């Protein structure tokens, strides 16, 4: 039956199906491509069609102290979130998978819940708590808030890896005389490393692109890049935003490639 496939005459149903899906893919990807066009287009406002290629918007972006301060703050926060969420999330996933905990599925759902509850409410609740505690809006408060919404990603990718590898490998090491500590450091940890790192990379992006959680937790002059871009976009829509967008898109694309290399995208896609 399969050999006949190529000889079959034009298959209208199949063609429609493929065309439709091609269009849907274009819908997903076109906006990203268009941002690149506007980032390189030199006209003073966003206009179509583009008239040329220039790097003036990238120059404006990288020369503006406002954008640069925000970029560095975002990178700093995302870096801290990366480290914190790897440690906290990786440990948590191990405990969930190997700790023989009662109520495991409830706990897993609980640790995933920051992804399901409105992020803007997480921001609001933390804002009110910091207000009540009278601590102002410190950067560490922002970092921990981001960590809270990034940890679930690390837990998810780590659990996916833990779920996939054979527990008997650990048991074999134990049978061969390795102490539990040695099994942990020499077998379990190396095995889950790709999952933890993939989650960490994802945590970095989640923090770097984070808006709703940051909205109420940043101070004037100490805003992260997405907040600065948002405020800028309310009044001005020029190529500088496109250039800034390109910078974060390139960052995201490199992350996708890193993820694919580390564990394959499939593992972390499990929702």
């Amino acid at each position: 039956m399969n050999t006949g496939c190529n000889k079959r005459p034009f298959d209208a149903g199949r063609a429609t199906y493929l065309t439709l899906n091609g269009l849907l893919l274009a819908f997903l990807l076109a906006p990203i491509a268009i941002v690149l066009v506007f980032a390189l287009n030199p006209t003073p406002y966003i206009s179509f069609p583009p008239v040329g290629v220039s790097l003036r918007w990238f120059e404006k972006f990288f020369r503006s102290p406002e954008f640069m301060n925000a970029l560095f703050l975002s990178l700093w926060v995302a870096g801290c979130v990366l480290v914190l969420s790897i440690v906290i999330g990786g440990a948590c996933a191990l405990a969930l998978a190997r700790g023989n905990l009662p109520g495991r599925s409830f706990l897993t759902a609980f640790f995933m819940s920051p992804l399901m509850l409105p992020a803007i409410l997480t921001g609001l609740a933390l804002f009110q708590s910091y207000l009540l505690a009278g601590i102002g809006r410190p950067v560490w408060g922002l970092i921990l808030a981001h960590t809270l919404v990034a940890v679930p990603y690390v837990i998810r990718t780590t659990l996916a890896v833990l779920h996939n590898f054979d527990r008997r490998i650990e048991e074999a090491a134990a049978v061969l005389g390795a102490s539990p500590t040695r099994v942990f450091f020499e077998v379990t940890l190396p095995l889950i490393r790709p999952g933890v790192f993939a989650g960490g990379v994802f945590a970095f992006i989640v923090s770097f692109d984070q808006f709703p959680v940051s909205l109420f937790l940043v101070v004037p002059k100490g805003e992260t890049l997405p907040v600065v871009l948002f405020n800028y976009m309310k009044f001005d829509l020029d190529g500088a935003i496109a250039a800034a967008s390109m910078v974060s898109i390139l960052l995201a694309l490199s992350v996708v490639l890193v993820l694919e290399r580390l564990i394959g995208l499939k593992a972390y896609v499990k929702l």
Partner: protein
Amino acid sequence: MAVASRPSPIAWLLAPALLLFVLFFVLPFGVMAMMSFYSGNPVTNPNAFPTTRHYERFIFDTAGIFHDALWATLRIGFITTVVSLLIGYPLAHWMARMQSRLGHALVLMAVIAPMLTGIVVRTFAWMTILQDRGVINTLLMEWGVIGKPLPLMYNEFGTVVALVHIYVPFMVLTLTGVIGRIDERLEQAARSLGAGRLRAFVEVTLPLSLPGILAGSLLVFALSISAYVTPSLMGGTDVLTLPMLIAQQVGTSFNPNFAGALGVVLLLVSLLIVVAYNRILARLSGEQGLA
């Protein structure tokens, strides 16, 4: 079996996460709920007293905007969900049934790449496409199809378009998992018994993927009713949603107590959805365990 045994020492690794979640998640939401029942900040203001007036203000809605905002939030969430399903299903089906590994990886990347691009950036992309001088209006006017720009942005339409783009990957990923688990031979059996391809799909695959449709829809609905960036940039003055109202109360009116009450309302709606979503997922993984 080790299932019923006591927690192992590894369980202690849960402690840091638990501490983080209690201090920065459970407690703050408690604080938010408490603040919504106070007239002011009970720590700094000795005159702050317990009250239900914030909820009364929302329920009686003398200003006539809060109910509209709640309704607009749910309506936008609903339309976004339906459109995401219509767009997401074909893509998910294609991905789940794709034979080529390379093709699968490429489509998966195309679906995930937008997810990894920030919400602010993606909303900006749609502003450049839909505004009066944007890509679509410029092209249509150049081709002489329209005389003046179509109102594609600063309204609900633009908001929904951008929201669909932002949340459709979640739908696709949820559905792909479920459709991929449906045995393809069931559909083949239907076809060998004489059903056409469409009929085999409608009567076999579609009903079997219903849990995925439900889970994906709940996820997209929960995400889109809490969206703030997109409605406030794409909606202009036409759109006012609950998250926008909350941000207004914090930012311009500086009334965190009323913002808390609005937050509790949004939280209750979301919790309802989350519980339903988890139920469906639990049932799904149960089925997977049997297979």
